[in-house]
């Protein structure tokens, strides 16, 4: 089975700081991590390979530092990793990203399954994978919480999707693209042997030229969307002490909570 795992490197949103330049990836301004949702992506892809054999290629679009995210993917156990990086690609919207990824997927070659995370925690559009599926013309099964039946010989899969208030079992033909949610598995912690293998690995970097893309058709210039983010989000909080005996205090507390429409 040929599996492609879409991986993004994101800031650690647990540690946003005002020194970051928006949510853009840069060497400064806080630690960069594998998009937490993509840890589930990688685990799904690796488990599928462990069960059915074949190969997992991790594909990442980002600045050169994003190779670190691919190192983590290799350490976890993917077979190959490809970084797509070109200054011309910077600051694109999800559609231009999808176009680039599709070009890279075509260059990687035939595939049976593409796995992505439900979204990236920085942009949080949950759109890129969807657009990749559309551009490739393959079925999309999103929000997968359980991969019930992946059958490479029958070329089908059946998956349980997690909806807001329901679960839905979907079958699809292969090749297909799925996006996964965190209920699907427990991502593994890279072993030291994996980390060492990853440190030695050579990660190819593909630019516009390698993908025969017109630099003008990607990046900020080609994007239909422009955004600004301010960090960290300003939270207003103030503390109010309620005096009095337990009963009075409780009554006041309930009144205040109702006033604030908390209850």
């Amino acid at each position, binding site marked *: 089975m040929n599996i492609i795992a879409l991986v993004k490197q994101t800031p*650690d949103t647990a*540690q946003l700081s005002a020194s970051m330049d928006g949510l853009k990836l840069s060497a400064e301004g806080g630690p960069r*991590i594998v998009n937490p949702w993509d840890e589930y992506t990688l685990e799904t892809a690796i488990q599928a390979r462990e069960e059915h054999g074949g190969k997992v290629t991790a594909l990442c679009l980002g600045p050169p530092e994003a190779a670190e995210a691919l190192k983590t993917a290799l350490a976890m156990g993917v077979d190959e990793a490809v970084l797509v990086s070109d200054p011309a690609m910077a600051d694109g919207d999800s559609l231009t990203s999808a176009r680039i990824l599709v070009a890279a997927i075509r260059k990687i070659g035939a595939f049976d399954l593409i796995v992505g995370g439900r979204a990236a925690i920085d942009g949080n559009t949950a759109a890129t994978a969807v657009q990749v599926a559309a551009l490739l013309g393959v079925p999309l099964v999103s929000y997968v919480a359980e991969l019930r039946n992946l059958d490479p010989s029958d070329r089908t899969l059946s998956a349980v999707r997690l909806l807001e208030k329901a679960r839905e079992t979907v079958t699809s033909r292969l090749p297909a693209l799925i996006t996964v949610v965190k209920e699907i598995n427990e991502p*593994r*912690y*890279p*072993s*030291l*042997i994996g980390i*060492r293998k990853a440190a030695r690995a050579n990660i190819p970097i593909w630019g516009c030229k390698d993908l025969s893309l017109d630099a003008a058709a990607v990046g900020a210039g080609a994007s239909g969307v422009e955004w600004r983010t301010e960090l960290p989000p300003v939270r207003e909080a103030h503390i109010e002490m309620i005096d009095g005996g337990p009963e009075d205090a409780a009554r006041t507390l309930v009144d205040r909570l109702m006033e604030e429409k908390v209850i």
Partner: protein
Amino acid sequence: MLSPYEKILFALLAAVSLYLASVTFRRMIGTIKRGQGRLAWDGLPGRLWTGVKALAGQNIMIRNRPLVSLAHTGIAWGFILYMAVNLVDVLEGLVTGFVFLEEGAAGQVYRLLVDLMTLAALAGMVALLIRRFIVKSTDLAVAPNVKLHPRAAGGIRRDSLIVGFFILGHVGFRLVGASFDIALHGPDPWQPVAALAAGLWSGLEPSVLTFGLHASWWIAIGLVLAFLPWFPFSKHAHLFMGPFNLMTAPGRTSPGALDALDFEDETIEQFGAGRITDLDRTHITDAFACIMCNRCQDACPAYATGKELSPAALEVNKRYHLRDHMNSLAAGGEDTEPLLGYTMSESALWACTACGACTEACPVGNEPLFDILAMRRNQVLMESAFPNELKGAFTGIERNGNPWQMAGDRMEWTESLDFKVPTVAEKPDYDVLFWVGCAGAFDPGARDTARAIATVLHRAGVDFAVLGNDESCTGDLARRAGNEYLFSIAAEGNIETLNAAGADQVGRKRIVTGCPHCLHTLGNEYGALGGRFEVLHHTQLIDELAKAGRLAMPGRDETRTTYHDPCYLGRHGGEYEAPRQALAAARPSLVEMARSRNRSFCCGAGGAQVWKEEEEGREAVSDNRFREARETGADTLAVGCPFCARMMNDANKRAGEPMRVRDIAEIVAESIRDDRE
């Protein structure tokens, strides 16, 4: 004494026995050599002395089970003496007319000594056999939920029985022989026991007596010849492997200080212990030295609370596995059976609190804790198979520099103080660097302790500073959980920070910390990675300040208080006095728990337990310990570790808050405040 034919027979049997023994002993040594590293032999005279002391002193045992140990001491001393006696007897048998020391005073003392020690050995042996086979002491049983080699339970009994009868037979027939000798050659007041026995033979013909004398000699000496080659297979090997193990003990900075792994060398492909041959040689020796006495099991908090772990079963299982594979291992064969499996279950592996009670209790210097941590290393570094909850703590150390995954400010805890806590950057000429620790920085309870420590230092006029946001997790939990790689990264970072802060100027600057785990890693483990610091526990500094009269304390608070020794301050740090003295400065009425000082019972947090769910068992380790604290009748439970505080606080809450749990620093700080008001 012996006839020429007997002498020839003896020579033949002795040659066969010695040959076979050399084969089996070489196998045992060959098996030990399959382990990693080397046995420690530096400073040989000191090591020999250790061995002699261990043989003669029998001390550790007496401490733990007095009566049994008394019986054992009788056997041990009797047996040690018998090594010499056997030589004498063989010589007397072979050399016609030779009588050791003859009739002089020395000979009399010798005979008296042998006579009495014979009685001691026989009495001791009978007592131990009664204990094992008639009383069936539960000390010697292993709980059914603990993994035990299928042949071990029966094997240990059979082994003990054989050893028992060997000793009874050997020593007993030596005595019988002496009694025949007396019956033949007249009374000997210097052998009262043998003389008493000689009364049995009154009236027998000299020829019968002579036959009896020869038969006894042959049984006593023949048993030794028969037993010699079997030694390495029997648990009786502890007789010499025990002292050998103590003699070759690796010099450690603390009983729990682990060896670092080499991550630079690309040719190393195994980290931690997956197979028995991945263990250090000293830990393979442990299995041969083990008496299977279960003293470690008695002391183990995981076992005491019904977990699947028994450090004794671990050693026994290793031993039986080695016994099964000794031939092939000694010949260089590969053993592919995973260590985690036949030695213990996964739940047992993750139940260990790394408290060190097992190593402390073991009379032959075994270190079951090290096997457990070596297997954890294999699980994390090689297999990536470990309790999932630990992943969050690992990720926290990696990304946030603390296991709580907190992104906050490490100085926040100082905000409510009425004085300013300076950072090293603000006060580079500090005397004492206060290492706050992740708990002190982020855990609400531990923040109170950190403030109390800072307050005491401030009031005593100590020039201190903190690292603030440059401080990062020491990596203790990563190391104890088997993630040595993460530990090494954390340690390197901190050593760099501390050196940059000048904390490496030993003699001029000291580090004080409120966390015994930080104390242990910084003080006992960073040294091997190049970080040399003088590190104190806060109670040590408080004790010092109080003694120097720098803390004005009324010391009149008569609240009955008991103190829980933290494993990493006590057993691993060797400090039992300072916390008691520091406490006494504020509260003189200390009531001790039954298990205290080096026999303290873990709170249940160590060994990365606090970062995961406790393994399945009968009860929580913390509840067990808290019950003991309550039974003292004290009102306050004094602690010296943020993790003990947390475990004891939780147990206190579950019990309906009958006690107050306070760090010694808080108790001292409160009492200083009283004085000022």
